[in-house]
């Protein structure tokens, strides 16, 4: 094998993301330890684990909000290349086609819903600062086209009738939808959802499950779901990876994960007898 082949990262046929030997150490604390798993294209993939398992750390490492101590994160980018995300700048990740949501729903309260969604389209603006400053025709056309796109996305989420309302006063459910809409602006290849069911009741969680499926089908993307809510995870995920104390436990279909003794142990403690 030539040197080139060893250096160039590569993914298998269906894979879109592969986490290889990911470790994250905070001083002496090993939050994530040699974790490996991979996600296939168009899957709805779940990452679960008991509290403190390190789920959030894992996906902060994937999205480069944390710099992993060890390991690679291979991703099949929008541009068709396989790249190792580790070491890339945080704000460049979205350009590769990977977006995330936030558990705390980070919206800008003073902006309207439409403007908040437009933030998601930031990287797609091509006109220069100069032409924007002077509102030249090219810039005006682009702004108009982006606004229309944002409206379409809000429409998909069912909230375009309130597009001009300020994000600040909106109920939690609406804000979550806006955040989801924001991620769709850039037509991502992989969306990572950070505990999307947090704070939702049963009915809303059901709607969320449907929305996630619709997003995956309509936008032809892959979804990584980091979640606590077992019903949601077992209900919509194609495959699930379970971790505990930052270490890999199992990666399998929902039915088999449920029956996996290691997973049960991690959640429920040592089996009696």
């Amino acid at each position: 094998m030539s040197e080139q082949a060893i250096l160039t990262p590569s993914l298998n046929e269906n894979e879109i993301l592969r986490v290889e030997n990911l470790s994250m150490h905070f001083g002496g604390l090993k939050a994530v330890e040699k974790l490996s798993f991979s996600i296939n294209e168009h899957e709805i993939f779940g990452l679960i684990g008991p509290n403190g398992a390190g789920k959030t750390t894992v996906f902060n490492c994937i999205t480069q909000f944390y710099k992993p101590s060890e390991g690679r994160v291979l991703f099949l980018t929008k541009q068709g290349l396989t790249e190792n995300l580790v070491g890339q700048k945080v704000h460049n990740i979205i350009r590769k086609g990977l977006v995330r949501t936030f558990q705390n729903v980070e919206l800008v309260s003073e902006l309207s819903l439409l403007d908040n969604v437009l933030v998601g389209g930031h990287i797609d603006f091509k006109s220069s600062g100069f032409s924007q400053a002077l509102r030249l025709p090219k810039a005006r056309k682009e702004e108009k086209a982006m606004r229309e796109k944002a409206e379409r996305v809000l429409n998909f989420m069912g909230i375009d009738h309130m597009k001009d309302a300020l994000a600040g006063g909106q109920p939690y459910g609406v804000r979550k939808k806006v955040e989801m809409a924001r991620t769709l602006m850039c037509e991502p290849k992989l969306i990572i959802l950070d505990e999307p069911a947090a704070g939702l009741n049963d009915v809303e969680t059901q709607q969320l499950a449907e929305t996630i499926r619709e997003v995956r089908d309509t936008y032809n993307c892959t979804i990584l779901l980091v979640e606590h809510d077992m019903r949601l995870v077992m209900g919509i995920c194609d495959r699930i990876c379970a971790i505990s104390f930052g270490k890999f436990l199992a990666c399998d279909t929902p039915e088999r994960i449920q029956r996996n003794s290691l997973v049960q142990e991690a959640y429920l403690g040592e089996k009696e007898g």
Partner: protein
Amino acid sequence: MKQDSIITKITKNTYLRFVLFGLIISMIPVLTGGGILKTSWLGIIGGTIIYTIAALGLNLLLGYSGLISLGTAGFMGLGAYISAYVTGNLGLPWEVGILAAVIIPVIFGILIGLASLRMEGLYLGIVTLCVAEVLRKTFDELEPLTGGFSGKSAEYPTLLGIFKLNQGTTFVLLCVVLVLMMILTYHLANGQLGRALNAMRGSNVAAQAMGVSLLKYRLIAFALATGYASLAGALYAHFVKFVYPSTWNLPLSLVILAIVVIGGLRSIYGTFIGALIVYALPDLVLKRIPIIGDINGLSYVFSGVLIILVVLFYPGGCVKVFSDVKLLLQKLFKRKVKKNV
């Protein structure tokens, strides 16, 4: 259907609103010339316009990006001295002077931004404080260029090499520049840049996840603030016609900051209102009141207290008073209509 009156049509179009505003304030030289207003009004409102321009830049930085700069006065001084030097010592046309007065400080500002913006935003406040100190001392020391503490003189602008302006026409020029800068700010604030800056202020992490490079946009905001400030300084040089080093000190930077906060963060008209309240009001009204008017430092206390009150109780700033009053009137009107039905 009722036809919109001309006034309504004009006031609904943002651009026409700015132009109308500019036309109104450019009437002042006519009013002072005709004796309707005291001649001191020309200088005071001219100063207000200059401060508004500097404050618009700071508003982009503070209001949209949430970053504090205490170097506004230093950059204003830099712009003033550069323009005075280029037109006076180098004898170059006024337009070149203005260009140099904006470009050179902006480059300087970008370098400073590169150094300080990689860290916590609050460090920018401290670094700009140092820079302002360095600049102030430099203005004092660099006599051959700045004339030291005896100051440097400049002339009213000569447009296109032909039209020599006087105080009144220079004032009109100030109005034109103000309207242009307001329009520019409007474009920047409501497009991709404004959204990116807002996102940065609202949530660093969300902005980054959406592709906004914090360093790049903080730098842009800071460069813009520097450019606006140095432009204001250059205009000052050609309106007041004299530049002293002692003018460009920390209290001046605080005054500009007060204008932004009191007038209304992220509001364009609010910035002008803020300048009126912080700068013009003390000179036009407070100083005329007997006994109280003679007290030194009163305007600082006034502005300082206002800043604290606005931040604590009325974050929208004074410009919000208008929309709140409008809402109140609408509520009262609705109640009246209900009663009559």
